[in-house]
């Protein structure tokens, strides 16, 4: 048998290290070639590391959340065959034969619980009778005592020492209201003392109980990236947010008309491609909004190309795929690209390139989107446009109230580089364009 060290491969993107976010194996697992070992996260994307060989895991080199340098040892495997080249000719056959009995367990490596279950009936040799007497442990007793389900049956006397019973009676406490933390659910002095401090359960709704458990969840992977990014944005950027309402009734009418006969080239449009077109038009008049602010260097990189990030909720967390060069796409082009990258982000196949490079961002919670929001700027951008929920509201047209499809835009700006005036101009321009959708299609 030989040892094989699996190192963290170069996952591309020109990075030097990656964060370990998931283990698919544990020590003792038998794995086959191409079985997944682990997943690491680079700036944006999660990369899965497969095993290049069959073998048994004997060592793992990092814990979830650790940053692992490219090329450092990730896993050690015990593999069939000898390390030396002077092995008999038959040796190369061995690796193929040896792992076969292990093939079954290997299939369950991704479900340790199932494996444990499956292995239970395995022992066929009955231990001697004397050994089969179940040996109760303190743990068992404790678990029963603390399990609310083990609360006593109606009429059953609470378990407590005479001193505790006397103390309870003197304090006017019915011990049946208490649950004990002692062995077999025995009510201890400290349980009674705690109850006396806490007050009677009777004042609470029946069936409700205090919960004191704390679950520690390590912030790793995408969540950590999001946390870091948001903290950076909010700590560095002084946000100003403008909320403006937009009458999207004509836009919605237009959209309904355009969506009547969708084709592969012209699929159904959501509201976002229209907004993207409006942003392209507004930015052509205010290019300072399409910029990245390198505040360390004191330089604003104002981009000619408009790359619109779309904040997207994925099963693993918030991601921002990017519609590149929105200025070069028509409304359907924007729609098609938006659908494609959003889908890739959701199913976890988006590349790093598809997740980077935005110059301005849209955030939309769709139908959940509230009346107003306070969008956090996608650092180091300087502006973000938030879309709120569209709803029909009564609008005064000068003589009467009429129902109108109204939608609020909540847009935030980096006040270090964007003044309120400019921000307001930008928002008003978006409103004007969206309320007069025909103007979106007028070039120049």
């Amino acid at each position, binding site marked *: 048998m030989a040892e094989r060290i699996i190192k963290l491969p170069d996952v591309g993107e020109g990075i030097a290290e990656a964060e370990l976010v998931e283990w698919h194996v544990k020590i003792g697992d038998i794995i086959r070639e191409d079985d997944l070992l682990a997943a690491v996260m680079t700036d944006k994307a999660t990369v899965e590391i497969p095993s290049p060989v069959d073998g048994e895991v004997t060592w793992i080199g990092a814990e979830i959340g650790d940053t692992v340098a490219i090329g450092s040892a990730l896993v050690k495997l015990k593999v069939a065959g000898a390390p030396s080249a002077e092995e008999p000719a038959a040796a190369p056959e061995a690796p193929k034969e040896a792992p076969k009995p292990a093939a079954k367990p290997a299939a369950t490596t991704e479900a340790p619980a199932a494996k444990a279950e499956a292995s239970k009936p395995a022992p066929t040799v009955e231990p001697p009778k004397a050994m089969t007497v179940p*040996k109760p442990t303190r743990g068992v007793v404790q678990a*029963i005592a603390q399990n609310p389900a083990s609360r006593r049956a109606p009429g059953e*006397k609470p378990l407590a020492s005479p001193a505790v019973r006397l103390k309870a009676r003197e304090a006017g406490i019915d011990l049946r209201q208490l649950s004990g933390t002692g*062995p077999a659910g025995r009510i201890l002095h400290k349980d009674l003392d705690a109850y006396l401090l806490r007050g009677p359960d009777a004042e609470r709704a029946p069936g409700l109980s205090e919960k004191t458990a704390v679950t520690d969840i390590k912030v790793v992977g995408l969540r950590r990236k999001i946390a870091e990014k948001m903290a950076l944005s909010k700590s560095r950027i002084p946000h100003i947010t403008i909320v403006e309402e937009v009458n999207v009734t004509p836009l919605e009418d237009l959209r309904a008309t355009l969506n009547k006969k969708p084709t592969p080239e012209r699929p159904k449009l959501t509201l976002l491609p229209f907004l993207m077109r409006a942003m392209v038009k507004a930015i052509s008049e205010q290019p300072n909004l399409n910029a990245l602010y390198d505040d360390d260097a004191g330089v604003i990189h104002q981009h000619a190309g408009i790359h619109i990030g779309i904040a997207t909720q994925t099963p693993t967390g918030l991601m921002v795929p990017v519609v590149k060069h929105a200025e070069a796409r028509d409304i359907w082009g924007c729609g098609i690209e938006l659908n494609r990258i959003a889908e890739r982000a959701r199913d976890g196949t988006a590349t790093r390139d598809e997740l980077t490079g935005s110059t301005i961002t849209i955030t939309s919670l769709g139908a959940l989107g509230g009346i107003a929001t306070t969008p956090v700027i996608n650092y180091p951008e300087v502006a973000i446009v938030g879309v709120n929920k569209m709803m029909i509201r009564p609008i005064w047209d000068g003589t009467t109230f009429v129902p109108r499809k109204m939608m609020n835009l909540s847009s935030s700006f980096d006040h270090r580089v964007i003044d309120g005036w400019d921000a307001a101009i930008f928002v008003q321009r978006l409103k004007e364009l969206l309320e007069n959708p025909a103007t979106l299609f007028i070039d120049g």
Partner: protein
Amino acid sequence: MTEITCKLLVIGAGPGGYVCAIRAGQLGLDTVIVESTKLGGSCLNIGCIPSKAMIHVAEEFEKAAHAAAGKTPFGLTASAPKLDLKQAVAWKDGIVQRLNNGVAALLRKSKVKIVHGRARFRDGKTVIVETETGPRTIKAETIVIATGSAPVELPFLPFGGNVISSTGALALTEVPKRLAVVGGGYIGLELGTAFAKLGAKVTVVEAQASILPLYDAELTAPVAKHLAALGVEVLLGAKARGMTPKGNALLIETAGGEEKRIEADKVLVTVGRAPVTNGLGLEELVLDMDGRFIRIGERCETSMRGIHAIGDVTGEPMLAHRAMAQGEMVAEIAAGLPRAWDKRCIPAVCFTDPEIVSVGLSPEEAGKAGLEIKTGKFPFAANGRAMTRHGEQGFVRIVAQAQTQLVLGIQAVGQGVSELSSTFGLAIEMGATLEDIAGTIHAHPTLGEAAQEAALMALGHAIHI
């Protein structure tokens, strides 16, 4: 007629009554206790204490007799013992007298006023006591009925002549050659065993199919075996029918329905005890009854406000220590303390040979209660102390809840196991688990080690077996 007014009046100075009065006195209550006979009640005067004294005499006599017969395995010999039963009874009476005096002293120390005489209720707050110097009226805020119980008389075997009660048996000045015992409960077997050891030919007539119906067959088996070894004949399923006209034999109907004569110099009738309520004037109060007994609640309150009842007069189990616990509780209630009966167990002890002790639930009782149990049983045959006492018969048995290891009951049968009742009771009252008992160091060599081993046995890892 002098009238006494007090806070608490206790009627009956048995173990329930005098404990109640002493505790009330300790708590500063103005307390009066009324007793028509001797302080200490049945327990002290004609029950527990004198019977244990006579049982001890019998044990000592038997040991000497064994030594005389060369039956001791450790080589002790003696000449044939002689017993002066009169002196033994006098010794017993001396103990009783000392304890009587002790109770009187304790009552005085607690500033309890003792009134000798028979009490009769006039109303719920007033009692008339017929004393030697005439009737006295006692008015009390709270009255405790603690009148106890008396042996049940069979109509066809009235006490008198050769038919005696336990009281009579304890006062015998000669050992009867042939003693018939009607009733195979603990009183009949305790006294029957003692007289058998003193040389009487004892026959026990029991109507039930087993002796000691309070205990299960596993516990009573060593007792039955030893009764046979003592030459005690036990007739189960047999009914006493009466005495022969000459009064020298007991007529019975055997389990097979046959008539049989049992020659007997004395016939001891121990078929149970009945509450003493006659002559108390209870008809003036119309208390709720529970059969023959006074019905009480968890604070020993009767159906009438301000009147409590404790002890045998309130029903089973008719045990002195139950009455004592009730008495103490009622005194505290009378003093305004918040108290109620919340005991987990009342130990029961049978001073046969071997002794039996039972605390909490037996396996059968736990099973009937729907509890999933495990048991551990350790025999005295594997206990060093039992061997050195030449008393290897019997065992300790622990019943525990299977899931939680909570000890539900502990029973034992064996020589001297009555003294283990305290630790058994403490374990259950404290809510001990098997591990608590197993994890307690038990002194070596003692009989108590068998309890620890029984707990270990239930946990699956007894050491000494």
